[in-house]
Each structure stands twice: as structure tokens, then as C-alpha cells.
């Protein structure tokens, strides 16, 4: 055994800083993905054919190609096509947000369709307008059903965020590589950030359980 964790001690603050860097873009990506995903889900269940067609095509493209490819395309093609020098941070938010919205829209669509049709009819019979009905009656009930699937998606996103290291964004993963290159020892820093990723996911899991319990109050 040739393990020596004492060597990474000076680098620990540098690696811990990566938590914040990773969380920052994951947070914005989740927000973007959730909003866009909800809109796409409403397109999919709506009656306007062009919107439905658009949402289906969108999902097909973003689910049908590798995330790392989407990330590269955004990072490299935007400067080439528009001259705007996009930052790795913004590229990461866009790639992960857009990609995740395709998955989230499918989760939400299924959740909406699983809500008892009587709920929709009751709201309609009361003369509640469509927007208010979706926001106050259908989506809250759908959310309760899909929370585990949604948490799963957020966990996947948090872990897969490691691939932003490929565009030079100094996230947790990239920092482990930098430290590894510095020390000529890769295993220790990799194991260290592995532990951090695991803690982040556990945190998310606990938050998910708490939200689930709150939503179950009405049962």
C-alpha cells in the first residue's frame, strides 16, 4: 500500500473551494432545467400542435446526444459563430440546464398525466381558468408524485457536473486533477473529491426526504 493522504493536506482548501464552484452552476442549471422543463411539459400536454411538436423534437435532440457533446458545442461554437466569448460557467449552466430540462419535462408530463382526471374536471366545473388550475391544482399534486424521480434527476445532474472539467471549469473534479498532476499522485485527491460528491448527494437525498414528508401532510 502506497497511500499517503498527508500529502494532499495543503491542497484541501483548494479542493474544498470546488464545492462552491460546482454547487454554483449546478444550482443555476437545476433552476433553468426545472423552469424550462415545466414549460416543455405544458407544451407536451397542451392542445397546440406546433408547441407539442417543438417540445417533442427538443426532448429527442437533448436526450438523443451525449451531454459532453452538447457542452462542447455550446462552449466552442458560440464564440465561433457569434464572436461572444462565452465563459465556462455560462456554458455549463446552459448545457446542463437545457439537457436536464428534456428529462425533467418527461418526468413532469408523466406526473401531470397521473393526476386524477376528476381534479381537472372539478376545477373546470368551478370555472377556474387554465393557468390557475395548472399552478394551484394539477402541478402541486403532480409534484408530490414525481418528487422521487425529480430528486433522482437532480442527483444525476450533480454527479454528472464533473464533466465540465473537460472545458477547463475549475470544479471539484478539475481541482482533483490539478492536485493529482501537482503531486504525481492521483488516487488520494480523487478519493477525496469522491467523498465530497457523495456527501453532496446525501445532502440532496435528505432534502428530498424532508420535502416529501412535508408534501405528505395532507394524507
Amino acid at each position: 500500500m502506497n497511500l499517503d493522504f498527508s500529502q494532499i493536506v495543503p491542497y484541501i482548501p483548494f479542493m474544498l473551494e470546488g464545492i462552491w464552484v460546482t454547487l454554483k452552476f449546478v444550482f443555476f442549471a437545476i433552476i433553468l432545467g426545472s423552469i424550462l422543463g415545466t414549460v416543455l411539459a405544458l407544451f407536451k400536454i397542451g392542445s397546440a400542435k406546433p408547441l407539442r411538436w417543438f417540445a417533442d423534437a427538443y426532448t429527442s435532440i437533448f436526450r438523443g446526444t451525449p451531454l459532453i457533446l452538447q457542452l462542447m458545442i455550446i462552449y466552442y461554437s458560440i464564440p465561433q459563430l457569434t464572436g461572444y466569448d462565452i465563459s465556462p460557467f455560462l456554458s455549463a449552466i446552459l448545457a446542463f440546464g437545457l439537457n436536464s430540462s428534456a428529462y425533467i419535462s418527461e418526468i413532469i408530463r408523466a406526473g401531470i398525466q397521473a393526476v386524477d382526471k376528476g381534479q381537472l374536471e372539478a376545477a373546470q366545473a368551478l370555472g377556474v381558468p387554465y393557468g390557475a388550475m395548472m399552478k394551484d391544482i394539477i402541478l402541486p399534486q403532480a409534484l408530490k408524485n414525481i418528487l422521487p424521480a425529480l430528486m433522482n434527476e437532480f442527483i444525476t445532474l450533480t454527479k454528472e457536473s464533473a464533466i465540465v472539467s473537460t472545458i477547463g471549469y475549475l470544479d471539484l473534479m478539475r481541482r482533483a486533477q490539478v492536485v493529482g498532476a501537482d503531486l504525481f499522485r492521483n488516487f488520494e485527491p480523487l478519493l477525496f473529491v469522491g467523498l465530497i460528491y457523495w456527501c453532496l448527494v446525501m445532502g440532496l437525498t435528505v432534502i428530498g426526504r424532508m420535502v416529501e414528508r412535508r408534501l405528505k401532510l395532507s394524507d
Partner: protein
Amino acid sequence: MIDVQALSKKFGDNLVLSDISTNIQKGEVVAIIGPSGSGKSTFLRCLNLLETPTSGAIEISGKNLTASRKEIHKIRQQIGMVFQHFHLFPHMTVLENLMYAPLKAKGVKKYDAEEKARQLLDRVGLAQKAAAYPNSLSGGQKQRVAIARALAMEPELMLFDEPTSALDPEMVKEVLEVMKDLAKSGMTMVIVTHEMGFAREVADRVLFLDHGILVEEGEPESFFKNPASARARDFLDKVL
């Protein structure tokens, strides 16, 4: 108040309502009876456009329903509906269930909505359940809340779609009592029901539907004693 002209409804090739015409006056209580699959519920659901008629016209308080698709939610606010399976909003308390539509659809002030809601809960005998969630109520209580929820919109007309069919027998009475009270107060009501005794006692008129055809209509006394059609006689023989 309700004027139905040559109403027909098809599901695919299946004709569920065939050329139905009738009138319902303000304050009238009409019971719709008939065998299952006769189109009773579909007819009722056409009256607030939960089903879109294939042909024919429905006028409610002078407004043509099918011509006013765009403002249908305004018209629906005038028409209360009570469902067989209640369809209370499970994530809201009883009080919130009653207040939601007045607040969101009608723009009633919160204070007024709450006062009205509490008053209605009192009327259906459930004032003490205001803070409860629907899942903690019995079937009969749920249906009384559902009636109160519909009344919270102060409708001119109430539609009931087999309101007691999903209830345990011992809970049917409490719901029928509430409906009787409502009928006495002068509410216009259209009720799809299998409760023949209730139809006979409370309704001003009975419509008998079979295979999507309005076979017979008349006063309950004469209808139940002496149905004019063979089909109605046959049906009554089976259920009474």
C-alpha cells in the same frame, strides 16, 4: 333557464345521446334516471360543456354554450357541479377547497370568501371540519363538502352526477338531506340519480333516458305509478 335543442353526442361511431330536446325552468328540480349506459351522465356533462356536444344547441340563461367556448369558464361559474367521486382537492383543507374558486376565478375578497365558506360548512353540518384535509373525511362528509364547494360560487344552477352512488349505504341519507334542503331553498337542480325514492319525493319532473334517447318525461307521481312507455315500465320493474 336551460334550453336544450336536438342535442346529440357521439363517442367515435357510438351514438350516446340522440336528438334530445328539453326545457328546464328556474327553480325546477329535475331528476334524470335510466339504466347504466343510457347517456344520463353524458347529458349532464354536456350542460357545462365537460363534454362537447356533437350537434345541437344548449342555452343557459340566454347564453348559447357551444357558441361561447372562449368564455366558457365564466358560464361555468354560474353552474355548480357535484361528482360521483367528489373530486375534492386533496392538498387543500376543507376551508381552502371552498375558498379556492371564489378567490381565483371570481376575484372575491379573502375575508368575504372565508365568511361565505364557513357559513356554507355550517349549512352542510361540517363547520368543525374546516381545517381538516379531505382524506380524513368519510364519503358522506366529502360529498357534503363538495356540495358546499360548488355553492361557494353562488351558482344559479346545480348539476349532480350520481352524488350518492359511491357512498356507503349509511351515508346516503346525510347527502340527500342536504340536497333536499337545497331544493327547498329554490335552487335549480339537475340530478342524475339511482335513488328512485329521492327522485319521487324531491323532483318536480323526471326525465327517463334509455340508449341515449329521451324516452319519457313527466311528473314523478304519474311517472312512477304509470309510466307511459314499455321501456320505462321495464326499468322501474327492475329497480323498484
